[in-house]
């Protein structure tokens, strides 16, 4: 099957759907594809909030928001991009409010705001601890209203380019039928999410966050930057890596060790706090989040998910007990390099959301800035991609090229990739984790290259054409491996500690 549109959006999370809305509004024909369903993307897991210096509950300013963001970024952010994002934040929240997002409210009917780590004021607008879920679903509802064409369970295989190297669409696996389809477009927006699942189970993320779009863009020749900057969230549940939102600390939660002693500043930026907790664990201590003193009412009101998840996965009720935690991979600052128009190094390819690197987070993202980024730069990517696509006079003329399926069919299928997936995740958590040594990075790179050599011996055992998740997971694994190589190579090039990249 061949499909055509002016703009093809790959990924249907908050960034992709926002981009699609604005591209369509600009007059472009838009198709959105997703390997899942739109409302199942990573955005739904964001809990804490979306930053905007509204000053609703205490004095705040755009300048403070910029200053806090730059400080946390450790000199690795682009000040102009940060300035743009923080200035647009107020419009972004107003837009979300205007389309029906159910933000929690303060007593004077203004949108309520709470403090997150590294912020000089209560700046995060929230909807209980379902901020991402409610933003995503409302944007999705808006897409239905605007009749955006969304195609579910379509998995990106390769980007298509014309003779001059311009991106002209994508080759996609229809997961349901097993058929390969072609989506032609004059502009492609990559909004495919981050790569925290390279850490496998040591991540708060959805199993889908395998860096597909980044790996595919890399194969097509796009430039990636800052891949070594990976944020570890201080408070993942110890056993399952399920996220306990930063808002638990924003509300006044304590981090304590086995003796019940507080040993760090709970509202420090995530990189600092994760290292403090990591050091405590290295001493042989267990670390816990204690929110008992917040009281049952506040916990039920502001942190209902946290209570439910702690009970389910750790068998503890946070109202009465302390919660065992450890830092786990949560957000990937690195990604596809884009300019001020969200355009990548490839003509016709735009990127937004976690797969892109707009250089607004630098070496460490502030809580509440990721939901902000997807709305602000989702819009920019949509507008700019539409403008570009509509300015192209030539009809699409991509060149047929071999895709990943050819390699897979040639696979010998003697080695199980699932055990390697887990092994890489654990090895990366240890060696390319919160604290890294040069020796660890070198050994990790060596191992990744060795596993890469074994790829032709791995393969897909399930022979079904219909809904073959063994096949999808194998392609994801290949993407993970490609991303891992980039992360560790990039880490080796940065010899001095910076934010989330901490070398000893």
């Amino acid at each position: 099957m061949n499909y055509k549109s002016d703009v093809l959006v790959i990924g249907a999370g908050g960034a992709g759907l926002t981009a699609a809305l604005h591209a369509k509004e600009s007059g472009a024909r838009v198709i959105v594809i997703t390997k899942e369903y739109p409302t199942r993307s990573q955005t739904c897991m964001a809990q804490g909030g979306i930053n905007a210096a509204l000053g609703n509950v205490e004095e705040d300013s755009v300048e403070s928001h910029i200053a806090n963001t730059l400080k946390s970024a450790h000199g690795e952010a682009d000040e102009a991009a940060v300035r743009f994002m923080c200035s647009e934040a107020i419009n972004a929240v107003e837009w979300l409010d205007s389309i029906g997002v159910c933000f929690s409210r303060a007593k004077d009917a203004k949108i309520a705001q709470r403090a997150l780590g590294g912020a000089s004021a209560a700046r995060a607008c929230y909807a209980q601890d379902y901020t991402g879920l409610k933003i995503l679903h409302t944007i999705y509802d808006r897409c239905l209203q605007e009749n955006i064409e969304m195609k579910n369970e379509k998995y990106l295989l390769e980007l298509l380019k014309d003779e001059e190297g311009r991106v002209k669409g994508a080759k996609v696996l229809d997961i349901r039928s097993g058929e390969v389809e072609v989506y032609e477009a004059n502009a492609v927006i990559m909004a495919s999410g981050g790569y925290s699942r390279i850490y496998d189970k040591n991540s708060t993320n959805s199993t889908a966050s395998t860096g597909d779009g980044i790996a595919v863009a890399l194969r097509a020749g796009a430039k990636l930057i800052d891949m070594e900057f990976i944020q570890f969230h201080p408070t993942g549940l110890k056993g399952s890596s399920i996220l306990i939102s930063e808002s638990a600390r924003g509300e006044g939660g304590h981090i304590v060790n086995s003796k019940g002693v507080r040993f760090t500043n709970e509202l420090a930026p995530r990189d600092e706090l994760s290292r403090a907790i990591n050091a405590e664990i290295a001493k042989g201590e267990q670390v816990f989040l204690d929110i008992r003193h917040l009281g049952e009412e506040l916990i039920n009101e502001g942190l209902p998910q946290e209570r439910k998840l702690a009970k389910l996965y750790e068998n503890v009720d946070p109202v009465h007990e302390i919660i065992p935690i450890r830092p786990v991979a949560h957000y990937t600052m690195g990604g596809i390099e884009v300019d001020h128009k969200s355009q990548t190094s490839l003509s016709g390819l735009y990127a937004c959301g976690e797969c892109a690197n707009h250089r607004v987070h630098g070496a460490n993202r502030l809580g509440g800035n990721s939901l902000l980024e997807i709305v602000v730069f989702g819009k920019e990517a949509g507008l700019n991609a539409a403008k570009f696509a509509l300015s192209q006079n030539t009809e699409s003329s991509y060149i047929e090229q071999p895709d990943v399926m050819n390699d897979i069919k040639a696979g010998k299928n003697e080695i199980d990739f699932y055990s390697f997936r887990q092994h890489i995740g654990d090895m990366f958590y240890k060696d390319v984790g919160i604290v890294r040594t040069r020796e660890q990075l070198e050994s990790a790179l060596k191992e990744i290259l060795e596993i890469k050599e074994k790829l032709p011996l791995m393969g897909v055992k399930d022979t079904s054409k219909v809904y073959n998740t063994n096949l999808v997971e194998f392609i994801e694994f290949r993407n993970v491996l490609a991303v891992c190589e980039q992360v560790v190579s990039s880490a080796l090039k940065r010899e001095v500690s910076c934010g989330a990249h901490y070398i000893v």
Partner: protein
Amino acid sequence: MININIKRENEFVEYGVDLEDVTLLEVLIEIKTKQDVSLAFSSGCRSSVCGSCSMRVNEREVLACSYKVQDGDTIEPLKNVEVIRDLVTDMDASYTFNARAKAWLQEGLGISLTQDDAKINEVQSDCILCGSCYSACPVYSVNKDFLGPFALTRVWKYVSDKREGEPKTKIDNVQLNGVWDCTLCNECTIVCPQNISSKTDIEKLRFKSAQYGYMDPNFGGFGSFDGSPSF
């Protein structure tokens, strides 16, 4: 050792895993990665917010990521929906109901909500579109045009939103195959992982419909309607 039976094609297949005190999703992943790569199921967030892993255990809808497995459990895909493979169903049809029901903010008034205003539909906006309610709905099982539980809950979410300037348009749109077709059996409420009661939302939509002069068609032709709800 936990043994479970999973419905595949037309038969149940028994699997045993050496795990304890784990969620069904953890067991399915264990089976997939260690025993049988061909088993198909959907999953995502593992924390009950993405709605991917809805299925039935012992004939009751659950999210696999929030259900602790018991020895002897029987696992099946959702009902009232096309099974693509094993535990994976095609959700496209139920998703289209949100569009048909026009479940969005039609005409934003640009007003500020108070704390009390925001509470009105706080629970309704917790919906994760997992589809458990469609699987449990006896009306949907016989009428595939019925707008169904989560779409009607979403309509109520917007109708009850003080920012909506066109609530009547929304009410007009849910009269046919909508609010009056529900039997108020409450199955949707029982299975909802987010504690949403679509049944109650449908009752509220009926009340609102009556305010706009609509009558329960099931009582059509029997005298005049005095404006009070007929339930």
